[in-house]
């Protein structure tokens, strides 16, 4: 069992998951619970019973609504797109791109200059002094951005490990964690009802949400290198969560 997970390997809430739900009921903040937890509990009588029982045990326990809750008041679950934040991000990207371009320009110059040996001897020392230090930050930044794209989402990792009970679906491709070629193809064994396929970034942002009536889907979108999650949902519930990598 992963200690950071709200779900056990047997697809039910952990003690911590149950406690979080009870906290939410006591504080009237169920809408702040992870969506997948809400969805699971709404269809799982076992977890419902656990929650009701613990809630019952705590019925005389007063919660101070003004107190900060360690989950609801600190975790950024699904941040709304904020104008300020977006501007900051755009500015950071533009700056990063400019620095990269700048670095690339000098790097390219360096290569071309290196071609005729006579000039290399003349130019190289200057280049080493000026270009190398200027080139380092953008590369690091780029590596960092790339690494960010591959970082795992705890919520989604929980779900990838979860098997969904009521309707099982057998996925043919991609395997969980597979490095895929583009265009990315998704295939599963037919479950006899229309499904919604969603593809999410590793930051849990939905990139594609589409209704599928067959048992396959080919994404036309070109994905940047990174880690992606994908879900299959019936009208009423989530039936599969997988992940794939684009290099």
């Amino acid at each position: 069992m992963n200690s950071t997970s709200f779900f056990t390997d047997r697809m039910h809430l952990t003690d911590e998951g149950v406690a979080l739900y009870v906290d939410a009921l006591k504080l009237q903040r169920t809408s702040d619970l992870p969506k997948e937890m809400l969805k699971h509990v709404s269809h799982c009588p076992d977890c419902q019973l656990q929650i009701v029982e613990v809630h019952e045990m705590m019925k005389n326990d007063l919660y101070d609504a003004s107190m900060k809750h360690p989950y609801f008041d600190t975790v950024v679950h699904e941040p709304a797109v904020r104008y300020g934040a977006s501007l900051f991000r755009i500015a950071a990207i533009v700056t990063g791109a400019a620095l990269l371009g700048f670095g690339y320009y000098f790097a390219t110059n360096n290569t071309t200059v290196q071609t005729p040996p006579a000039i290399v001897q003349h130019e190289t020392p200057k280049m080493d002094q000026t270009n190398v230090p200027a080139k380092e930050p953008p590369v690091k930044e780029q590596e960092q951005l790339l690494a960010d794209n591959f970082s795992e989402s705890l919520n989604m990792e929980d779900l990838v490990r979860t098997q969904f009970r009521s309707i099982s679906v057998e996925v043919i491709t991609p395997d969980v964690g597979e490095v895929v070629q583009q265009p990315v193809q998704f295939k599963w064994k037919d479950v006899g009802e229309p499904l919604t396929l969603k593809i999410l970034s590793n930051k849990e942002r939905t990139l594609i949400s589409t209704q599928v009536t067959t048992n396959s889907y080919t994404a036309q979108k070109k994905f940047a290198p990174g880690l992606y999650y994908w879900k299959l949902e019936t009208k009423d519930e989530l039936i599969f969560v997988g992940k794939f990598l684009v290099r």
Partner: protein
Amino acid sequence: MHSHHEQLTITLLRDDPKKFLRYCQPIIEICVHQYMASGMFPYAEAKDIIQSVNEKLYARLGTIDQHYTGRVLLRTYINATVRNICLRIHEERNHSIKTIQIHEEHGIYTIDPTNAFVFDEELERLHTVLQLFHEERNKLYIAMKLYLKIPLRKMDIYRWNRHLAPAQKEFLISLFGKNYDEMTIHEIFAAFAPVWNSVERTSSAPKSIERWTNEQINVVIKLMNGNPPRRSHSKETLQVLLSEEYSRHLNKES
């Protein structure tokens, strides 16, 4: 109890586990007594059981320290843990001791319609249970009321779907906003199905909506009663509860 809860911290657990355990006593007692009330543990063995829970909890403090990530309130987490320990003890006793007689009716109480306090508690429990159905709770509530023939309120419809067409709202209120005892369940769901299908974007037959409602009501009753059962809720008591709730709303509105 509340002050002790506030002192239940992970630092205390690490620095002074015995003191931590002392602060857990109210939680343990509530849990054990709750299960005694349902006949899961005999009253005569209260002290022994509390002792067993303490021993097991003490042995698990290290694991709690490892697994508790600080994302929930520690006191709630301890409540969930203590409950699991009680269930484990119950299982062990069931396997090893065969001589304890537990009567099925032990401790189960029937709802007394004249007891306002019990009513409040049970209504609150019902709404807690309904909250667990998350997005389906409002549709379940309305379907449940129809199944149990309780008049609908405008607010019930609004909560289910605030964008319902005025004609459909009017239809529901004119038909189900008053006493409709004389209608059969089949007639009720036959009339309700077109509105349901338009809101839920389905094409369910009245019979299947009725069946779904019946199944969900059974789940609600099971949750209301607990496991092992401490109450004896049935469709009838649920009907009494919802009917009383409706009367209270009427009184408030008038």
